[in-house]
């Protein structure tokens, strides 16, 4: 242990990576994969770590920890104030915490998840070392985001998705309506999924039937319920679902959505096969995934 917690108030704190040890074919969700892979990967990149090194994922993080040895740290993800022995430090860069010094982190603005990486990675062989968990996840009773955590951004968040050709063939009008609408991230969200609400004047009188037989689903899939409400599945989503799938977010958009607070406005941009491939390659090559 290189950081000893002395004060700890996040809703959840767990060690996460980019690969899961859980068997989704038996229904186990990925509770050990970073919700925001982009920020997780940045934390490791800033430290020169392999991208597979685990980071600590804090939901609405506030903590204080004392270094038990000299340690190099990087914090990415949600907007936070960081200090070492009361000296302010910038996030999204790596910095030293000498032995005996106190690292303090306080939420400061928008965002949901904070990633704390340490040089060479956390000393554990197994991810999903769940330290605490209060929001979403398979060990939690809460599936809604408490209003006190709403830190809405005024910016319109644009997300890329690939339209499911099968859905497009049957419900082209629904796809167009989805793309031309602006959506709000509702208070109902968890590691499984994010429910979206149509802004006023947007149609949401969909008459889509649910599926006769449930089908496999994956993180990033956008389900449309018969009420017309879209649900974007997150990294900890279920493995099988019975609602129609309109499309799938690309990796970067899935990371961005995971950080967006309830109340944030969201719009969707349909991308082509070539754009998906290009975005994916750029994302993975940059982080060495």
């Amino acid at each position, binding site marked *: 242990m290189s950081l000893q917690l002395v004060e700890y108030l996040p809703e959840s704190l767990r060690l996460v990576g980019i690969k899961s040890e859980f068997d*989704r*074919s*038996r*229904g*186990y*969700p990925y509770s050990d994969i970073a919700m925001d892979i982009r920020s997780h990967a940045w934390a490791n990149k800033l430290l020169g770590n392999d991208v597979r090194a685990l980071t600590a994922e804090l939901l609405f993080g506030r903590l204080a920890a004392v270094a038990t040895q000299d340690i190099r740290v990087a914090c990415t993800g949600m907007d936070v104030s960081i200090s070492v022995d009361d000296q302010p430090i910038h996030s999204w860069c790596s910095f030293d915490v000498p032995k005996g010094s106190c690292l303090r982190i306080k939420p400061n603005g928008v965002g949901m998840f904070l990633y704390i990486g340490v040089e060479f990675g956390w000393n554990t062989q197994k991810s999903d070392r769940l330290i605490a968990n209060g929001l979403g996840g*398979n060990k939690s*009773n809460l*599936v*809604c985001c408490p209003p006190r955590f709403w830190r809405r951004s005024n910016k319109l968040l644009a997300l890329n998705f*690939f339209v*499911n*050709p*099968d859905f497009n063939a049957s419900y082209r009008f629904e796809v167009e309506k989805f793309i031309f609408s602006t959506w709000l991230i509702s208070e*109902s969200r*968890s590691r*499984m*999924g994010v429910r979206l609400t149509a802004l006023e004047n947007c149609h949401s009188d969909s008459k889509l*039937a*649910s599926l*006769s*037989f*449930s*089908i*496999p689903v*994956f993180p990033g*899939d956008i389900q449309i*319920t*018969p*009420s017309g*409400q879209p*649900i974007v599945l997150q990294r900890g989503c*279920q*493995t*099988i*679902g*019975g*609602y129609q*799938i309109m*499309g*799938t977010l690309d*990796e970067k958009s899935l990371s961005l959505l995971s950080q967006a607070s309830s109340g944030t406005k969201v719009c969707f941009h349909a991308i082509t*096969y070539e754009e*998906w*491939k290009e975005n*994916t*390659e750029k994302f*993975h090559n940059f982080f060495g*995934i």
Partner: protein
Amino acid sequence: MKLLWRNPITLEYDQADVPSLRVTQNLLKIKASLLAELGHLIDEVLVAWNSLCIRFLPTAVFDRDYVEKRVIDLSSQDNSLDFPASKLWQFSVCYDPRLGVDIERLSLEKNLPIEALVQRHIEKTYSVYACGFLPGFAYLGFTDQQLHCSRLASPRKRVPALSVAITQNQTAIYPSASPGGWQIIGRLLDTPVNRSDLLKIGLGEQIQFQSISYEEWRSRSG
């Protein structure tokens, strides 16, 4: 049969319109063969009812035509049904409206007294056609025609653990609290044995339900 790319890395294959244990078995064999042949390119393969989805690694380079052809070739092979001898699980369920929160409405919609609705649910022996959604969630078929119903227009944010629910021609038990869109008609006895048994139920196994009163459910639930 339907074969389509949901997105650039996910191939969805629907084997048949009507699921059966033979279809499930066939899909599992296709999955095993694909993982053996193309495992280095695949992120995961999931099977549900009558469909199978292959999700490739985001950066994998593969020939889409070849993958489609392999799935079709594998599906055309004759696979005999070889689930192990079927185990029969029995669970006691309380169908009281205080726990089965949709049963009164369903009773009205179907013009069927609650007792008759319960009778139709317990008189069948169900088979497990798929496992997934959550750990221990078994998709059971098929319910009596008079119980057929749609999913909720918007899924509930939280369905209590051990809820017994129906949708379409299927029934299931929620092993843990989660969001869910099925119509809830009852609740299993809440005992450590039941919670643990749900995690052991496998494909092809069978399940029967027995009705108990609310008082009995309260006194025997842990």
